[in-house]
């Protein structure tokens, strides 16, 4: 150090100065962190802005009434029809198949892991099950098309190569961990004293699980189902690969059909000029999709509030 150490007033002034500098730096850092936190808000705003902007352009060409009531979906033909119900039918039937798999299996697995399985079994089985949700969905699509569909065709020879059933089945298995993990968390959060009370009255495990734990955890289980539904509705690649992309107004899972999501993929795979009606269509489809998942999320939020049991 070339400077002699400061003493008295000068030293105090120097300390005050460095403190002020630190404070200033802290404020700058806080500003930067705040900006980072706002990125997620901007993302939401941008999603809403982009979807609404392009959809408004779309609805200047296509009346909302036609969009909701037309029974044909042929946006890229000369005789264009824009009936979203065709795509929604595909989304609904595939989600139904998936939920028919995921909800019963997921609930049984959750009850089993939370109430029946020992500590060791749970520690081993749970991560294996969660691998199911870690596998990229394109690989599930591949699996549905090349393994599940041929297997189903052995039983039902008239099943087309592209069908909702096999896509929905595989999607259901993919969703199992979402349903089971959240349900299990809800069940494990039920206080031990309730179980002890039930066992003390002589109830078996099965009775305790179905009549005490499940009702007490109902709000959590319901929101797990809702999450499963919104996963199924938003799932894209399995359907795009295995369900075919033919718009088809049917709820029959044995046929091929397009969904809201797989239609977007189909259009994106083609070469559509920017600002054409076809280009705007996928944003209208996207807006429909996000309104659908948003309403499910709100429903889940409401269910959690309404049926929450406080202990």
């Amino acid at each position: 150090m070339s400077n002699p150490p400061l003493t008295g007033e000068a030293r105090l002034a120097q300390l005050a100065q460095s403190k002020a500098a630190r404070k200033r730096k802290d404020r700058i850092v806080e500003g930067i962190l705040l900006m980072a936190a706002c990125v997620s808000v901007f993302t939401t705003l941008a999603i809403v802005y982009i979807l609404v902007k392009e959809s408004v352009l779309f609805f200047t060409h296509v009346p909302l009434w036609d969009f909701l009531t037309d029974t044909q979906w042929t946006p890229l033909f000369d005789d264009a029809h824009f009936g979203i119900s065709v795509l929604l039918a595909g989304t609904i039937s595939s989600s139904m198949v998936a939920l028919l798999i995921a909800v019963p299996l997921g609930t049984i697995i959750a009850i089993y892991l939370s109430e029946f399985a020992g500590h060791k079994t749970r520690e081993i089985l749970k991560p294996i099950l969660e691998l199911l949700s870690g596998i990229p969905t394109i690989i599930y699509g591949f699996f549905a098309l090349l393994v599940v569909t041929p297997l189903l065709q052995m039983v039902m020879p008239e099943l087309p190569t592209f069908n909702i059933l096999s896509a929905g089945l595989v999607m259901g298995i993919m969703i199992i961990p979402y349903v089971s993990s959240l349900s299990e968390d809800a069940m494990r959060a039920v206080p031990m004293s309730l179980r002890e009370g039930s066992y003390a009255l002589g109830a078996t495990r099965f009775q305790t699980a179905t009549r005490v734990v499940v009702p007490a955890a109902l709000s959590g289980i319901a929101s797990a189902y809702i999450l499963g539904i919104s996963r199924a509705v938003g799932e894209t690649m399995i359907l795009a690969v295995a369900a075919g992309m033919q718009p088809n107004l049917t709820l029959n899972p044995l046929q091929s059909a397009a969904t809201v999501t797989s239609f977007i993929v189909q259009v994106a795979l083609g070469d559509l000029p920017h600002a054409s009606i076809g280009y705007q269509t996928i944003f209208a489809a996207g807006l429909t999709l996000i309104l659908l998942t948003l309403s499910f999320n709100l429903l889940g939020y409401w269910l959690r509030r309404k049926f929450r049991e406080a202990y």
Partner: protein
Amino acid sequence: MNQTVNSKERLRAIIRSRKRWDVIFGILGLLAMSVGILTLVALFAQMIIDGLPRLTSDFFTNFPSRRAGQAGIVSAWVGSLLVMFVTALFAIPVGVASAIYLEEYARKNWFTDIIEINITNLAGVPSIVYGLLALGLFVYTFGFGQSILSAGLTLALLILPIIIVSTREALRAIPQMVREGAYACGATKWQVCSDHLIPYGMPGILTGVIIGLSRAIGETAPIITIGALTFIAFLPPVPFTGEPAAGMFDWLFSPFTVMPIQIFNWTSRPDPAFHANAAAASLVLVVLTLSMNATAIWLRYRLRKNLKW
């Protein structure tokens, strides 16, 4: 006397039948688990049987080709690597910074409430919607085109909620006394964060980052939506090479393909020879994502074991 014996017997029968339900449900639970596990086994078996013979070193160094036997994944894995690099570069700083802000700086008011609700909601938005966002915003409004930069930023926005949530959990697990001790020594908020909270929360933060990236590397839908080409027989330009020499950042704006898109492309062809290619590429992708997940689980395990406050 006879009646008591009788009612005892009846009681035993009731208990037996109730206990039987316990056993039945236990078996049912195992059966339900085995559906999931068997699916995993079948998935892997199919990928290994169909794909393993194709996994030669040529497969990793060849470009996609019209002839299935000569096709490879070099453009796909290079593309995936570069896209992940952009994603990580954007998502990690922004995600960690938002988490620190929300956990350590933010006062409880309507604005932070909005940010929190918003993050929860973003986590539930289907991935294809991010693709539409990217198509409208990055590709056309910002003019980034169908490039590595667009794809990387899209996936970064997609995994941002995952990183934020796990970083917040990691920060929350650090006991209050660490902060109090540092403040008592006169540290500012940022000094507390950068010198204590971030290093101590590192395993948790890394877990979130790895899980986020493993999700991003398998995402297909948003990348298809921005219109990434599926037949790419060249690599992005290496900086300062070629004729004329490529700029430092030219690769960011280069067309690209990624592993999941290559798999999609091969799956949607009718020729079974291409399906073998898809199986092989799927095997590579799945091993990659699962080993990333395993690393995350291992990190979490180490975190639990070594850290005792």
